[in-house]
C-alpha cells in the first residue's frame, strides 16, 4: 500500500487575534491518495479555498493554520520551518489559481517562468529548460508553442494563461496538483477543455488532484471523491458517482436541487435554501446549516453533529436524508 500524497488532520485556519479571532476552517481532515482526484465543493465563505491553500502552504499573510498532522509524500511539513519547505514541495506540488494573471509575472516571458522550476530543482540548462517548456505547452494544446514560449502573459487569452499555468505545473510531473476554481473566469467551452486537460494529466502522469469549485456538477464530473464544505467544515464526503443520487447531508441535497439543469422540466421551481451562507465570524451553535435547513430540529441547534460513516462515505448531519423523521 502506497503512502498518501497529502495528509492533513484536524486542520484549522484562523485570522486575527484575541477577541477578534475568527476561525474560518475547522477540523478539516484530508487524505489524498496517489492518482486520485478529490473535489472540494462549497459556496463563498465555506473555507474551501483556504483549505486548499493551507494544504499548498500558500495561506495569505495574517492567516494562521494548525493541523495535528501535515504530511506531504512522507515528509512531516509541520516539523519543517516555512522557509525550508521549498525542497520538499518544489516540483512535486503545483497550484493553479482562479486568476492566472495574478500568479504569472507580467514582466517575464511565459517560457522563462516555466523554466524556473526545472532549472532550480533539476539544474537544467537554459536551452534544455526552454525545450521542455515548448513540449509542455504543446501538451496542453497551446497552438504554435515555439512562438508562444517567448511571449508575455498579457499576450495570452484567459484560457491560454490557465493552460500555461497547468503546463508550468507539468514541467516536472508533480505528485499533487491543487486547482482552485481554475475555470470560474472562463467560458464553458474553455472550461471543458481545461478540465479534460486536468483529467489527462491525472491519467498520464498519475498526478493526484485537489479540485476546488463552487460548481458541484463540474466537480462531480471530474473528481473521484467529493468533499462538501459548509461554514468552514466538511459536512459530507462522498464518492463522485453517488453524489447525484445518494448524498445524505441536507445541505448537499439542497445544493444539488438548487442548480438549474439542462434536462429538467422548466415549470418545476428550483429548490431554494433560505437565507445566505453564514459569515465566518458569526458563531452558530450546533449544526452550522441548521438556520437554513428544512429538516431542522432542536437537536440540530444544540449539538454539532460529528462526521460519521454513512453508506456512501461520511456525513455530519443529525437527520441525514434517507431516514427521514
Amino acid at each position, binding site marked *: 500500500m502506497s503512502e498518501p500524497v497529502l495528509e492533513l488532520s484536524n486542520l484549522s485556519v484562523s485570522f486575527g487575534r484575541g*477577541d*477578534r479571532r*475568527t476561525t474560518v476552517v475547522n477540523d478539516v481532515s484530508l487524505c489524498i491518495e496517489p492518482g486520485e482526484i478529490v473535489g472540494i465543493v462549497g459556496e463563498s465563505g465555506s473555507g474551501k479555498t483556504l483549505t486548499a491553500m493551507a494544504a499548498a502552504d500558500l495561506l495569505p499573510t495574517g492567516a494562521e493554520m494548525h493541523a495535528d498532522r501535515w504530511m506531504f509524500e512522507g515528509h512531516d511539513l509541520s516539523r519543517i520551518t516555512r522557509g525550508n519547505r521549498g525542497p520538499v514541495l518544489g516540483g512535486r506540488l503545483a497550484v493553479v489559481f482562479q486568476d492566472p494573471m495574478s500568479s504569472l509575472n507580467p514582466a517575464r516571458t511565459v517560457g522563462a517562468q516555466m523554466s524556473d522550476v526545472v532549472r532550480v530543482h533539476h539544474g537544467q540548462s537554459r536551452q534544455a529548460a526552454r525545450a521542455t517548456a515548448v513540449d509542455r505547452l504543446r501538451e496542453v494544446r497551446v497552438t504554435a508553442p515555439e512562438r508562444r514560449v517567448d511571449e508575455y502573459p498579457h499576450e495570452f487569452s484567459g484560457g491560454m494563461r490557465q493552460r500555461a499555468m497547468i503546463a508550468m505545473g507539468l514541467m516536472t510531473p508533480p505528485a499533487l496538483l491543487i486547482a482552485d476554481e481554475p475555470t470560474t473566469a472562463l467560458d464553458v467551452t474553455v472550461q471543458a477543455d481545461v478540465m479534460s486537460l486536468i483529467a489527462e494529466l491525472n491519467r498520464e502522469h498519475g498526478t493526484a488532484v485537489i479540485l476546488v469549485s463552487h460548481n458541484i456538477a463540474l466537480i462531480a464530473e471530474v473528481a473521484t471523491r467529493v468533499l462538501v464544505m459548509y461554514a468552514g467544515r466538511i459536512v459530507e464526503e462522498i464518492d463522485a458517482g453517488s453524489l447525484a443520487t445518494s448524498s445524505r447531508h441536507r445541505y448537499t441535497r439542497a445544493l444539488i436541487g438548487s442548480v438549474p439543469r439542462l434536462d429538467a422540466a422548466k415549470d418545476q421551481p428550483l429548490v431554494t435554501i433560505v437565507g445566505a451562507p453564514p*459569515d465566518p*465570524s*458569526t458563531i452558530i451553535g450546533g449544526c452550522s446549516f441548521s438556520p437554513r435547513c428544512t429538516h431542522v430540529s432542536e437537536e440540530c441547534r444544540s449539538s454539532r453533529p460529528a462526521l460519521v460513516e454513512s453508506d456512501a462515505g461520511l456525513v455530519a448531519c443529525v437527520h441525514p436524508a434517507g431516514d427521514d423523521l
Partner: protein
Amino acid sequence: MSRAFGRRKRWLATLLGTPTGVAGVVLLSALVILAIIGPPIWGDAAVKSDFLRTLRPPSPAHPLGTNGSGQDNLARVLVGTRLSLLMAAGAVAISASIGLLSGALLVTVGGRTQRIGATVIDTWLGFPSILLSVLIIAVLEKGRGAIVIAIGLSIAPFFARITLTSAASVVGLDYVAAGRLLGLSRRRIASRYVLGTIVDSLVVAVFSMFGQSLIAISALTYLGFGGARSGIESWTSIDWGSVLNDSVRNFRDQPASVLGPAIAIALAGVAFGWFGDALGRSLNPRLTVRSIGGTPRLTTPGETA
C-alpha cells in the same frame, strides 16, 4: 430618529477611532480656536516693541524670548496662526475650485480632449510647485495675495487629477448606467452619482493639501516673498513664515525663538493630514463597518438581530 442618531455616533466613533484621528481633531480644534481668540488676546503683545528688551532669552514673562524689536516671540506665533490658516484656506479654495471644475469638465467632455487635458495636468503636476509659485509671484507682484494665488495655481492640478481619475472610474460603473436608464437628469447624475461618490477622496485631498499649502506658504513668506515690512507693524501682517524668518535671522543670539514657528508649522501640516485621513475614513460607510466591530454587517440600535 434613533437610527440617524446611531449613524452619527458611528461616524464620530470612526473619526476618533484611531490615535492619529484623535490627535488630528484635537490639534485642528486647537488651531482654529487659536486663530479666533489669538489676535484679540495677544495682538498687542505681538506688535509692542520694547527696544530695551531685545533678543532676550526665554523667561517667565517671555517663554520663547523676544526678537530684535523686543516683541514677544510666543505671542507672535500665537497671533500668526490666523493669517497662516487664512492664507492656506485661500490657496486651497482657489486650487480646489480650479481643479474640480477643470477635472469635472474634462470628464464630461471625455474622449480625446480628456486625454490631452490629463497630459497637461500631469505635466503641470510634474513641475516643482515651489518653483512654479516663485515664477508666478515674479509675474504678479510680491505680496501675500500673490503667494496665495501662486500656491493655489500650483496645487490646482492635484485636485484636477484626483477629480479626473476618481470621476472617470465612477462614470464607467454600472450604477451610473442604471441611473441613466432610469432617465435621471445629467445634473443629478453628475452631482449625486459621480460627485457624491468621489467626495470623500476630495475631502481628504482638501485637508492634506491644506496642510501642505500652509507649509509652502510659510516657506514663501519665510523667504521674504510676502513683501517688505512697512513702517508700523500691525498684527494682521504676522504669519508663521515671517516669524520664522525673524527668528532664523537672530538664531545666533537667541536660538530658542526658532522653536515656536517651526513647531507650529510642522504640527499644523501634520494635523491637517491626520484629520483629513480620519475624515475620509468616517465618510466612507464601507470602511466604517470594519473599524467598528468584528462583524461586517451593521445592526441598528433597537433592532434585534
